[in-house]
């Protein structure tokens, strides 16, 4: 049997970068829209109060990581025990919770911030349109672009939801902890996501294609959060955010391609499968930056995140194994964030006050 070697072309990389960029832009724009100008001062005060309460931040981060580990392990357990119906019900409940319930709160906040008078019938009718079409697209047949659009909406709304729960610096603590959990879950032998990938590969001829064939959004949405389950506990995703799905044959964003054979090494144009959790955490990082920093820092984080994602792909090619997709992008984004926060913004302010950058 010829050994299969996966390669990734520029087209494949852009196929991943575009939706990630769109999701981050969506979250950034929505965070900016739902942030009234007058309340920025009170936001800063709130941030100052919570920023330095490390005990509180640590507690929230621990809750977040605990919930993440619990949901990931439960998801893998259900998959291994073939509790497919449980996974489907969970995914459906999450979609309804985000697209219908949380959309009301989010768009209400935007309407209030932008001072748009809306009547009750019109508002709920439009939310019904958005949620109804979304559920139809995600769990039944729909156009590919529309399906991808609603996956991005789902991830974006999830990120906005988490963003409104966590104080400022908790976001960075949470992202750091989640990155480490991502590494543990994917690269260690007993990691749940590694077990998930191995189980899926072993069952390649059985249930996995059946699930994908019937409705690929089921498996793709396993990493959706549950907004209706908890009251105050911060909610997050299954950490399928790893690139454990990078090497799976079914593509969320791209159709399968024909393999090309070169001597005894078969080069297969790999299709990249990015978990929805990755979208959420990238958007979470950028949304937090929009809330707390001026535009140059936001742009720096945005570009560095995409660069980090681009760096992950050659490493996947070289190692020919699944890799977590969070550490590189978030590490590079953190470097740019804090360097901009410490150096660039004071420099720009100084130049402005000295009337140099007119």
């Amino acid at each position, binding site marked *: 049997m010829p050994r299969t070697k996966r390669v990734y072309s520029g087209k494949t990389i852009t196929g991943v970068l575009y939706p990630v960029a769109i999701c981050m832009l969506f979250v950034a724009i929505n965070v900016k829209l739902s942030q009234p100008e007058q309340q920025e001062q009170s936001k800063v005060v709130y941030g100052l109060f919570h920023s330095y309460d490390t005990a509180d931040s640590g507690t929230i981060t621990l809750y977040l990581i605990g919930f993440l580990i619990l949901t990931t392990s439960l998801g893998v357990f259900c998959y291994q025990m073939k509790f497919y119906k449980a996974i489907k019900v969970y995914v459906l409940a999450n979609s309804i919770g985000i697209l219908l319930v949380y959309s009301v709160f989010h768009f*209400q906040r935007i*309407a*209030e911030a932008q*001072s*748009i*008078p*809306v*009547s*009750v*019938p*019109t*508002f*709920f*009718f439009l939310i*019904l*349109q*958005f949620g*109804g*079409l979304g559920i*139809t697209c995600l769990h039944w*047949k*729909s*156009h*590919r672009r*529309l399906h991808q659009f609603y996956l991005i909406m789902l991830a974006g709304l999830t990120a906005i939801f988490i963003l409104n729960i966590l104080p400022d610096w908790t976001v960075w603590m949470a992202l750091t902890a989640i990155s480490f959990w991502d590494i543990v879950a994917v690269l260690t032998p007993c990691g749940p996501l590694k077990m998930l990938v191995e189980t899926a590969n072993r069952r390649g001829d059985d249930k996995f294609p059946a699930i994908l064939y019937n409705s690929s959004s089921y498996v793709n949405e396993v990493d959706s959060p549950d907004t209706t389950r908890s009251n105050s506990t911060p909610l997050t995703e299954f950490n399928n955010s790893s690139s454990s799905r990078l090497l799976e044959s079914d593509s969320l964003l791209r159709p399968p391609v024909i393999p090309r054979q070169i001597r005894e090494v078969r080069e297969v144009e790999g299709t990249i499968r990015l978990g929805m959790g990755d979208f959420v955490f990238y958007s979470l990082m950028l949304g937090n930056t929009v809330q707390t920093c001026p535009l140059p820092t936001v742009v720096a984080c945005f570009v560095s995140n995409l660069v980090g994602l681009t760096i992950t792909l050659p490493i996947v090619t070289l190692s020919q194994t699944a890799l977590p997709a969070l550490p590189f992008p978030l590490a590079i984004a953190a470097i740019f964030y804090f360097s901009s926060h410490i150096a660039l913004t004071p420099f720009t302010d100084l130049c402005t006050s000295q009337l140099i950058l007119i």
Partner: protein
Amino acid sequence: MDISKLTDVKKVDLCKKYFLIGACFLPLVWIVNTFWFFSDAFCKPINAHRRQIRKYVIASIVGSIFWIIVLSAWEIFFQHYRAQGLVWTDFLTFVFPTGRV
């Protein structure tokens, strides 16, 4: 999914189901149905199946226009009387503009 690979029978069935879903107060689904099957309904040679698709697409267009008119009329009506400060408009206002006590 890509409908260009479906048979005509399955296209008709999918278009019909989308139309029925849109009938549950979801005109946005009708709009999607219109854009999705427009080329099959009007830009290809006619046959029995395409005639059915055309029927469903036209029904979706009519239904969408109806809902757009209803929604626009209601919103114009409501904003007019809300600006006049009638009492019943306060109960039906979901978001009050800035400055209103």
